[in-house]
């Protein structure tokens, strides 16, 4: 929790800045609508966190989100009755894609950057191969409800957030971080490294499925709904102070990073920063955040030397 403080502070400042320009933001409806908008990215960031903290990447979530939405539309095809079955199927699909990512990465020893890059190509190709190039079918009202109604979206976000925080406190989460920190020590403590890693990928896939359900619900079918989300999710996680390479950072901070990113977008919009320049701002903020973290490290690391000295003789 302590380690989430810097990002929470930044988030608070940004939210305050938004509120100054847009007082409506302070009303429950205004704030909740912000939360709803941020929900998909926050959920994706939570999933991406699980993978990053174990020392891996998942670049496939963006195209997975698209796949989820397009598949949902084709399978539901406007039929309200099909909604629940398809929802279940979508979760299974996300889980399955994640499992494949995890299995290829751990069992075939392909770096996850490459595995998930390949998966990204495969997914975006396969889904449109299946639908003939453009989305077909339509989503049902019941499906749309989750993303459209603020209440549902916020509820799902809260459930996911609570679940993932609990997960990270449970055996799974602690062993996951231990793997990211020191795989060998974890293995010699009886951690099933391969299995835990695969589960992390699977959960990242599920998070993409949930994000897809929210995004599809919010705005309907679109072929580009997931575009670039993988990089946004990684950016959010890194903004939260989670270190690429694993073993460090909390999921709360990662989700706060996603909120921060979304708040930054909102703020730039409100202050009328030109559409394009906001990417520049985003880039600068990203680098600055990571550089600030890296520069601070030597001081933090100082006590470690002492331990080394004993081992020297």
């Amino acid at each position, binding site marked *: 929790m302590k380690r989430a403080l810097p990002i929470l502070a930044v988030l608070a400042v940004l939210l305050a800045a938004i509120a100054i320009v847009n007082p409506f933001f302070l009303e429950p409806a205004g704030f909740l609508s912000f939360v709803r908008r941020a929900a998909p990215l926050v959920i994706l960031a939570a999933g991406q966190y699980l993978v990053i903290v174990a020392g891996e*990447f998942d670049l496939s979530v963006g195209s997975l989100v698209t796949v989820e939405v397009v598949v949902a539309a084709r399978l539901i095809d406007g039929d309200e009755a099909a909604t629940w079955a398809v929802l279940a199927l979508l979760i299974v699909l996300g889980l399955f894609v994640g499992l494949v990512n995890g299995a*290829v990465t751990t069992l*075939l*020893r*392909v*770096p996850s*950057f*490459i*595995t998930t*890059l*390949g*998966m*990204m*190509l*495969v*997914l*975006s*190709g*396969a*889904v*449109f*191969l299946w639908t003939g*190039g453009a989305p077909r079918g339509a989503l049902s009202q019941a499906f749309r409800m989750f993303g459209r109604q603020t209440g549902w979206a916020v509820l799902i976000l809260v459930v996911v957030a609570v679940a993932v925080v609990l997960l990270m406190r449970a055996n799974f989460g602690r062993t996951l971080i231990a793997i990211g920190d020191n795989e060998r020590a974890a293995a010699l403590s009886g951690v099933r490294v391969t299995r835990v890693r695969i589960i992390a990928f699977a959960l990242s896939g599920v998070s993409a499925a949930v994000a897809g359900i929210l995004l599809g619900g919010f705005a309907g079918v679109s072929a580009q709904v997931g575009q670039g989300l993988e*990089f946004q999710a*990684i*950016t959010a996680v*890194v903004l939260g102070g989670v*270190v*690429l*390479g694993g073993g460090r950072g909390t999921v709360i901070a990662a989700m706060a990073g996603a909120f921060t990113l979304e708040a930054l977008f909102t703020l730039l919009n409100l202050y009328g920063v*030109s*559409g*394009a*320049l*906001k*990417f*520049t*701002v*985003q*880039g*600068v903020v*990203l*680098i600055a955040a*990571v*550089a600030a973290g*890296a*520069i601070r*490290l030597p001081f933090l690391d100082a006590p470690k030397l002492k331990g080394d000295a004993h081992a020297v003789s």
Partner: protein
Amino acid sequence: MSQNVLADSRARFAALVNPTSVVFLALAAVILVGWALVAVDGGQFLTMETVVGVQQRSAALGIVAVGQTLAILAGSLDLSVAYLISLASLVAAVTMAGQDSNIVLAVGAVMGVSALVGLVNGLMISKLRVHAFIATLGVSLIIKGILGDLYDGPAGRVPESFQHLGYDRLGPVPVSALLWAAVALVAWFLLRRTKYGYRVYAVGGDVEVARLSGIRTDRVIIITHVLCSLCAGIAGLLLASRLGAGAPTVGTDGGYDLESIAAVVLGGAALAGGRGGVAGTVGGVLLLAVLDSVFNQLEVNSFFKDVVRGVVIVVAVAVYARRTGLVGRRRT
């Protein structure tokens, strides 16, 4: 004695199955299978136009991938190349403004801008200790913003004389392919024959060993990123010449960032650095281009192409991982 012979033949066999050979064998196989498939389809695969087409299509990616090879060999990577290519194409076309007399200035400007971007990347990674993924992602966002703010569509104009670069050919070899070959040769030469090249392998292979051997690792990283960016700049020049103008989306449309990384890895380089080479990358790029060409001939739809491409990349790396795993086991 007999043990020696055995060891030698084993070494020769190992050389045969090293990733670079694998990628060229795969390339030959794809050409063969492609030729057969196209023939069954009633077409001709190895026509002059396809041969030229493969080269034209792979030249820009090839040049970027050579730069990316350097970055990956040094244990880094560069996600900013796509936007840098767009920027370079615009800088080139706008500076040239259709005038022959401006070509030298424009090429200089492109090289300058590219070197600057590479310098920034390198400094952030080596001095600020920012993970290469984040540093170059951040830089690409910055360039993206600047591009979007300054240009809203194709801009500038490349004079006819400069377009020879993109369109002319000597027999079956386009000038663009010669440019690629030149860049690849320079990089190959750098890696094989200069101290710098040896240092790149050392830094990517094991930073600690490199440092203990007296190598200034930060400097190697910075130079590598400058060179990688210069390659992206050259690719931008080539594309400007092909397009006749600069285009703010040419780099991202081409997917040069991830695709160049994929090509390098396909060529047998280890993503973690220290293993691989320019030859493998050239093979990787050609493999992707020939695959593309086969699909083009068979008029396979582009979605299927993506699926195949994704599978090929992952399978290739899995094969390499297996192989190096078997050989490397003894060490652990």
